[in-house]
Structure formats: C-alpha cells, structure tokens
C-alpha cells in the first residue's frame, strides 16, 4: 500500500533536496532546518499511521521502522551544525537522512535484494559522513578503514545470501519462510550461509572477531558520526539477524545456536575487558558498544534454540529487541551529550577532559553531567534505569530455556551464558563508573574556579543536541520506572513468539523441539495444530 511508504518517501525527498541544493550558495542553517522538518514530519507521519491508518501484519517491520525514525530524530538533532565546520553541510545531512531510510528499508524489506539495498544505503551514507565531517582528529583514517572493511563485509554477506538463494530457490522472505519451514537450511549446506551471514553482519554489529575497526573508527571521527555508527549499522544488523536467521532460516542447522553462543561470549568479554584500559571517550564507548552487541547476541542464541515455552515473558528475540531500544537510548544520549561539549577549539577526547564537569559554572553543563551519569549507569545496568530491564530480559530469556526440565544440550550452556553475562555486567560497571567518577569526584565542589585554562564550554548551536540528550535521559528513566509497554512492543515484534501468521512455523518447530525439550513441545502443540495458513 502506497500510504504505508509515505514517511520513507518524505525522508528521501528531503534528503534529495538537501543533496541537490548543496552545491548552491544556500545558508547552512537552512539545510539543518530542512533535515529537521523532514525527520519530524516523517516521525509524526509514522506514528499517526500506526495509530490510526495502517494495521500491518508484519510487527517486526513496524517495530524496526519505529526504531529507525526515532533513532533518526535523535541523530538529526545531534547532527546540528556548529559555526566552523566544512562546506558540505547539505551532503552531510542528506546522507544522514538516507541512512535513516536505509534502516527503515531493512526493517520492512520483504525481499533479500531490498534488504541488502537497505544495508548498503546505510553503509554508503556512513562512508560519506565519515569523510565529509572533518571534526574528528583522524577522519581520513577512520573513513578509509571503515570503507574497505565495510565493503568486504558486504561482499561476504552477499555471498551468504547467494547460498540462501541456492538452497531455497527464492529471494522473497515470505517464500523463504516456507522453504525454511520445510527444512531447507538444516543440513550441512545450511551452515555455509549461516556462517557467511554471521560474518557479514558481525561486522555491522561489531561482534568480536569482526570488531577491529570499531575502536579506531570511533576514535578517529566526530561524536555525531560515532553516534551514527553505534546506532544505524548495529540496529540494522540486529534486525537482519532476527529477520533472516530466525524468521527466514529458522535458526539454520540444529546446532547453529552454539556458534552464536561462542560469538556472544567472546564479544561481551573482550569488549568489556578491553574497555577497562581506555582513556579516550569514543574508544571506550566503542568497546562498550561491542560489549552490548554481545549481550544482544545472548538473546539471539536463546531464540535460535527455539525452546522458549509459550506465554513466557521473554523469548530471546523479544529480549534482543528490547535490549536494542535500551542500548540505543543510552548510547545515542551519551554521544549527543559529548558532542555538545567543546574544550577550547576541539571536541572532548579523553576522560580527563570531563574532569569536574558536574561543578561547571554553567547550569547546562551540570545537567549534561547528570544526563551522562544516567546514560552510563543505564549502560551498566543499574536499576531503576532502562538498562537494568534490558539485562533482566536477556538473562531471563537465557535462564528460562536453561530452566526447562530436560531441556537438552541447550540447558547448561545457556545457564553458563547467563552467568558470563552477569559477570560481564559487573566488569562493565568499572569503566562506566570511572566516567561518572571523573565528572563528579575528580575535583571538590569548590575547586573548579582554579583551572581556568581549560574550561569546558557548550558548542555553538547546541540547543537541538541538548534537546536530544534530554529526550534520551527522560526516556531512559521512564523506561526504567515503567518498562511494561516497551517490553510489550518488543514481544509483539518477536518472530519466535506465537502469532496467527506464525502457526506454520511452529508446526515445523515441533519436530525440532521433540528432540530438544519434550515438555515444551507438548505445550506448543495446541497452537501448531491450527492449519489456518
């Protein structure tokens, strides 16, 4: 239906207008106003449609698009111009809007080609942004590194898709589901596309053996680009994994979840442990975002066992999607907050630059310090902030399958996974707290006046970014106090939980489950007997 596409069309139109006007002598603030109007209209249109007009059957698509537009709003607010940067404001904002559209396309794609095009749209936008935005200290290195590795990963992913096509004989996700339901991906041949897809997407989400670029690229570029890289590719990658591995391929071969389990353990542990030594803020947050990819992969591991009993609060996919919301809010908020700060004529780089931020003379800076504290504590998973519920969701999902009596091989390993996750949460708290303690404890309340030479300031035109920070902080606290509504969104989007259109899938799952968990299969059977589709 055409109206369903209106938000995306609107955004593409705004993006193209930005790009077309870019060579002309247009005032830079106009581009920003244009991008802002575009994204606000897009978001408003999307939510209006979801509220009144369109009732989509594809809840994962709706969830992903909602995420895309909301993240896009924050990114555009964050991307505001300061007085002294490059001439390429039009290109920059246009590319950003296209990247956002890319994420929306990934979310709603019903075809492997469109899925890939969406991913590439994000990648191409990122290349341009990384090169055009010259605020970062090593923007050329960052852009080059990201470009080559990203191209390689896209090729690997595409190679994986070609195997999918070879095995299933179709590019449509709907038909793929049917092929997967008939066991097209269960054999040894199913392992090849699975591994290739995991490798290709592993780059996008910065999972561990494919993570090497992230710290360097984040450190080399500006805060707003780091925000983009930690949000768009990661969200897109997670949506692709859920869509392709869970919905399309039914988790692939029987033991495929063990591969993801290994990825998850490595990603969490390495990300968190390496972050402990970082002094550069963006590098630290890069490792943090690697680690959070690991937590989300816990959810994927659990979902790929297909052993979560019916009606239970969290299956793995729902946990993953909920965690994604929580992670994005805190990470985007943190980058937005850091992006508004300026130390002399440069952006803040190291932890020491934040020293005493909580006692800055300016009220706005003090509020920024408190917001950053909220984001860090939320990322560390301390209640009553949103991050806690994310951790609860993934750990609960893992233990839930681990607790199934007679749960087969999945049982002890998923409990192990939950324990690794919990230990990691404790490790991670160390470096998040270091950020907080630098801002709050490094100087006594009265001492700030003494070091005049390096005062932190807000950059020019930081109001929209401040608004984004406030938005993220408020949402983080609100979700922390009352997460039910958001968990419900994630649950409805989860492809592994029941729904009328999923009954066919459950019918084939029953075969798998009978060998994995006897008792769970019996509880599933009433649903799978419904042959309506």
């Amino acid at each position, binding site marked *: 239906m055409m109206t369903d596409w209106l938000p995306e069309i609107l955004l593409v139109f705004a993006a193209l207008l930005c790009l077309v006007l870019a060579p002309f002598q247009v005032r830079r603030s106009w581009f920003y106003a244009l991008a802002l109007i575009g994204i606000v209209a897009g978001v408003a249109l999307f939510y209006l449609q979801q509220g009144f007009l369109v009732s989509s059957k594809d809840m994962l698509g709706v969830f992903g698009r909602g995420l895309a537009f909301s993240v896009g709003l924050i990114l555009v607010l964050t991307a505001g111009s300061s007085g002294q940067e490059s001439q390429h404001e039009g290109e920059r904002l246009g590319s950003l809007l296209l990247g956002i559209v890319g994420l929306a396309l990934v979310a709603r794609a019903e075809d492997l080609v469109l899925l890939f095009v969406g991913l590439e749209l994000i990648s191409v936008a990122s290349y341009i942004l990384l090169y055009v935005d010259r605020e970062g200290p090593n923007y050329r290195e960052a852009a080059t590194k990201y470009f080559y590795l990203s191209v390689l990963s896209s090729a690997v992913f595409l190679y994986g898709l070609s195997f999918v096509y070879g095995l299933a004989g179709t590019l449509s996700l709907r038909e793929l589901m049917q092929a997967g339901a008939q066991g097209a991906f269960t054999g040894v041949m199913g392992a090849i596309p699975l591994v290739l897809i995991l490798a290709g997407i592993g780059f996008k989400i910065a999972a561990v053996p494919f993570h090497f670029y992230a710290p360097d690229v984040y450190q080399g570029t500006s805060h707003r680009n780091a925000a983009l890289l930690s949000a768009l590719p990661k969200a897109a990658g997670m949506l692709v994994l859920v869509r392709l591995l869970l919905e399309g391929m039914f988790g692939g071969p029987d033991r495929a979840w063990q591969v993801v389990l290994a990825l998850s353990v490595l990603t969490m542990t390495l990300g968190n442990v390496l972050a402990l030594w970082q002094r550069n803020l963006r590098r630290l947050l890069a490792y943090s975002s690697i680690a959070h990819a690991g937590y989300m992969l816990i959810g994927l591991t659990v979902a790929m066992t297909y052993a979560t*009993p019916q*009606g*239970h*609060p969290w299956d793995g996919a729902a946990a993953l999607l909920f965690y994604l919301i929580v992670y994005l809010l805190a990470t985007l908020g943190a980058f937005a907050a850091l992006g508004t700060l300026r130390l002399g004529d440069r952006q803040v780089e190291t932890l020491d630059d934040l020293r005493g931020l909580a*006692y800055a003379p300016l009220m706005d800076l003090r509020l920024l310090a408190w917001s950053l504290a909220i984001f860090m*504590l939320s990322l*560390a*998973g*301390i*209640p*009553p902030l949103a991050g*806690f519920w994310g951790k*609860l969701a993934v*750990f*609960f999902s893992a*233990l*839930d399958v*681990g*607790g*199934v*009596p007679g749960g087969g091989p999945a049982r002890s390993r998923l*409990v192990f996974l*939950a*324990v690794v996750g*919990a*230990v990691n*949460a*404790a490790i991670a*708290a*160390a470096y998040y*707290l*270091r950020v*907080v*303690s630098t801002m*709050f*404890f*490094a100087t*006594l*309340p*009265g001492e700030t006046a003494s070091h005049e030479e390096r005062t932190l300031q807000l950059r020019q035109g930081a109001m929209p970014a401040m608004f984004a920070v406030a938005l993220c902080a408020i949402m983080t606290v609100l979700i922390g106090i*009352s*997460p*039910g*509504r958001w*968990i*419900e969104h994630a*649950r409805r989007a989860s492809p592994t939980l029941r729904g009328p259109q999923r009954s066919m899938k459950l019918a084939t799952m029953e075969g798998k489950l009978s060998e994995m968990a006897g*008792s769970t299969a019996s*509880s599933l059977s009433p649903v799978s007997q419904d042959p309506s589709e």
Partner: protein
Amino acid sequence: MGTLLAITIFLPLVGVLLAGQTRESARLVALTVVLVNCLLSGYLVFSYPGGAPSFAVLEVPWWPRSEATLGVRFAMGLDGLSLWLYGLTSLLMITCVLVSWEAVKENAPAFYRLLMLLYTGMLGVFVARDVLLFYLFFEATLIPLFFLIGIWGHEERRYAAMKFFLFTLAGSVLTFLGLLALVIWNAYASGSGVVTFSIPELTQRLAELRERGQLPLAFQLWVFWALFAGFAVKVPLVPLHTWLPLAHVEAPTAGSVLLAGILLKVGGYGFLRFVLPMVPDATMQVTPWILALSAIGIVYGALTAFAQRDIKRLIAYSSVSHLGFCMLGVFTLNALGLHGGLLQMINHGLATGGLFAVVGMIYERYHTRKIESFGGLARKLPILAFFMFVLTFSSIGLPGLNGFAGEFLVLVGMFQRAWHVGGWEWVFAVAGTLGVVLGAWYMLTLVGRVFFGTLREPLSESVAARDGAAAEQTESSENWHTYSVSAGQHGVRDLSLREVLALAPLVVFIVWIGIQPQFFLSRMTPALKSVQKPLAAPAATQIADRAALPARSVPPVGDTVSDHLTQISGCDAQLADATFDTGQVTSDHPTDHDD
C-alpha cells in the same frame, strides 16, 4: 495501612523535588520529611499486631499492559523480619540529617536530595514483597551512596566509592541470577508454567516443591552460592569485607551511619528472607562453613579493630566483628539464634550508627580521628562522652542495654547448636564468646585512651589560626599537634542541642530494647518461625540423603522456644532462665539438664 506504607516510601521523593536551591531550604525540607516520615512509620511499626504474619500489605499491578504474562506487581508490606529494620531506617535518618546539618557545606541541596533518594531505596528494600522490586531497591541504594561517598567523602573517596560499588555490584548480579533461577524453577517444576515474582507466594510454592522432592539439593546449592555472593558481600562476611573499612572511613558521617546502620543489614535480611526459607536443604548443608566464616570474622574483625589508630577505622572493623555475630546467630538455624541474630542487627544499627555519628562530631571539632592525639575528652566534652559511653556499652553488650540481649541469644543459640552437632561447632561457639571479650577490650581501650587520662587535644585548624605562635613552638612535624591545655582554652564546645537530639533517639531505643527485649522479639517471632520451619523438619525425600551425611541434623527446637520468648519479662536474668528452660524442655538430649 498499605497506603500509609506507600506514602512513607515515596514521601522522601517529594522531598527530592522540594529541596530547593539553597542549603537552608534543602536541609529544612530534609528534616521535615524525615521527621514526618519517622512519625508515620513509627505509627505503622507500633500498630503492628503481634503474631500477625504480615501487615500493611499493598499490591498494585506495576506494568499494566503485560501484567498477565509477567506477574510483576508493585507489592509491599511489613512482617516480622522487616518491621524493625524498617523502623530503624526512619530513626537513623533523623540522626543523619542532624549530623549533616553543619558538616555539609558544599553542594548541600544535592547532598540532601541524594540522601532522600537513599532513604526511599532503603525503605523499599525492606518492604518489597516482589523479587524484582526487592532487587530494584537493593541496587538503587548503590547509586546515591556512590555519589555521597564520592563527592562528600574524605581523601580517598574516589577509590572508596568505586570499590564499594564494584564489590557490591559484582556480588549482587550473581544474586540476581540466583533469584531468577528460583523464579524459573518454580514455574517449571510446579508444572503450572506461571511465572511469579511474589516473595510470599514463591516461598510457599518452593516449600511445597521441596516436600514433593522437586527441589534437588544440587540445584539448591547452586542457587545458594549465587545468592550468597551478593548477600555475603553486603553483610560482609570475612574474605569479602575489604570494601567495608575503606567505604566507612571515607564516607561522610551520614553515609557511614547509614552504611553501618542499614545497608549492611540488607545482607543479613537477604539471608533471612531468601536463602533460609527458599533453599533450606542447601543452607543446612553449607551452614558449618558459614558459621566458620562468621567465627573467623568475629575474631579477625576484633583483632584488626584493636590494631587501628584511627577511631573511625576501629569502629568500621568492629562492624565486621559484630556482623559476624549476626550471621552466627542466623546460621545457628534455631529459634534462639535467629531471634538473636535479627535483634543483633537492630542493635548494631543503633550502636554503631550512633558511634559513627559521635566520631563525626569529634572530627568536626578537631579535624582528626587519630586515637593517640586525644586524651581525657570526658572532662572537656562531658555530654559527648556520655553518649559515647552509652553507645560503647551497648556495643559491647553490657547487661541492661540492647547489646546484651542480642549477643546473649546468639551465643545461647550457638552453644545449643554445638551441643547437638558437636565437633567444630564448639570452636565456633567459643570463638563467638571470645569475640565478646575482645569487643569489650578494644572498645574500652578506645574509650579509655580518648576520654580518660590527662586532657590532650589535637590542634584544630581554627585554633591554629588563632594562636599560631603557640603552634609553632611545638615540635611535632604533623599538622595535628598534641599538647596539654586547660579545658576551655580551645574554641571547642560540647554538643549542641541539635547534636543531642541526633543521638538521643538512639539512646532511648538502646535502653528500651535493653530492658524490654521481648516487646521487640515477640514481633519477630511469627516470621522467624516460618523461616525456621523447613529447617527444623527436613523434607521427606531429603532424609535419606541427609542421613548419609554425618552431623547435619538440627535440634527440633522451634515453636516452644519462640513461645517462651514471648513470655519473657523484661529482666535479663529471667530471660536467661527462660531460654535455658526451653533448652531443657525441647531437647532430646537427657544430658542437657546439667546446668
């Protein structure tokens, strides 16, 4: 009543909003909130009907949209375990606000806001009747205290705050997994598949599962160690205690008072609330080891305290020793010990909380806490000395004050257990007794050095500024000089009315518990009885299992002891008789009559 309970929990949050921008407004709002809340919660606590299993229960759905599937409810209420800890929190908050009145100068509005947040968190931990709600409040107390230590603490504050936070968090994430494992096990093993987070319901269902033999010992042991990780750090039991002296010493006075008075109790409360009733077989299996750790903690804490040269550090290590007592009592697993352990938690909160407040007052006057720089303060500061004496006597268990009732019950419980189990348990019992003696030794030495003898005062900064000439003549290289002067020469005053009011409520309760312990004990009894029930009677399926393991049976003392406790009149001698009588009545051992 439930509504009133909810009001007391959330009133401090109103204080956070109203605190205003200036120091005056903030501390005034904080004091008002604390006083009003203390009245309200005092009314709640004293209207608790003795013998009731729970009281003032409030349950509302928390997440309206997914309530059906999640079963998370905003459920709170009081019972015998939480009643006095809840009351103690409100009482100690008055002390905290009053001792911070002048001491906190910088950023005072933020200080009182965080204090109020901490207040809500602490009350919430004790009243939560939902596992998630409990954990939420449990962790939420970390954030305000982290900032309180880190911003308003002393020299090493940054390191202390980080260490405190990380130790506690590392333990509590494992506790969290343990709690989730229990919730999930309950959902599956019962066959219903219904996930419940409600603590009373969970306890009851797990007990039923255990009776049917569906709670295997191996699973219980895993869960036990997971829960142990968080609660033992919080208590703290000995190898996990290293964060405590640091955090205590570096925290501002209010932080130390609350840390010692309330937050350490959360660990013991967690053991009583979750570990003992939910995984009883594992508890019985592991008990000797926990008792050993407690006994080591008692002696080690006491000896380390004796070696300290800093008053605050000494009291911090005495906390390690005293908390060892609480754990010794709880893990005797008999009625006397459980009552004693829980009472001792309250006692320690009153006495050590008060002692930290007194140390804060000394520090405010002299800006040092070195023991050797003080002497004969009793002449100079008689009122402060009076409070110090009362708190010290309470801390060392002088008969007639609260410490005696608690320590006595713990030791009697421990000896009773040792009598039945034998072996190493005697060593633990003797070590506990030794701990009492050592406790008296180091506390009285401290009081003797600081408050008696010839008057010696450190040179405080204000005095140094005033008569700097005199200071230069002394040869000490340190900035705290000690020299004898006649009283009144320094500008140091005795306690003001505010400071007296900060300490007086504690002293009232110290004396009250001392002369009338059964009033407090009787209200704990119903809850402790249900805690002890699975421990006294092993499940049918476990008997064969446990028979193979030697020396693990627990004497069937239970109901009668608790009943007798309610009849004990105020006199301590009678308390002693009554408890020994019950030992005779309920014991299977004929040789138990020998006293």
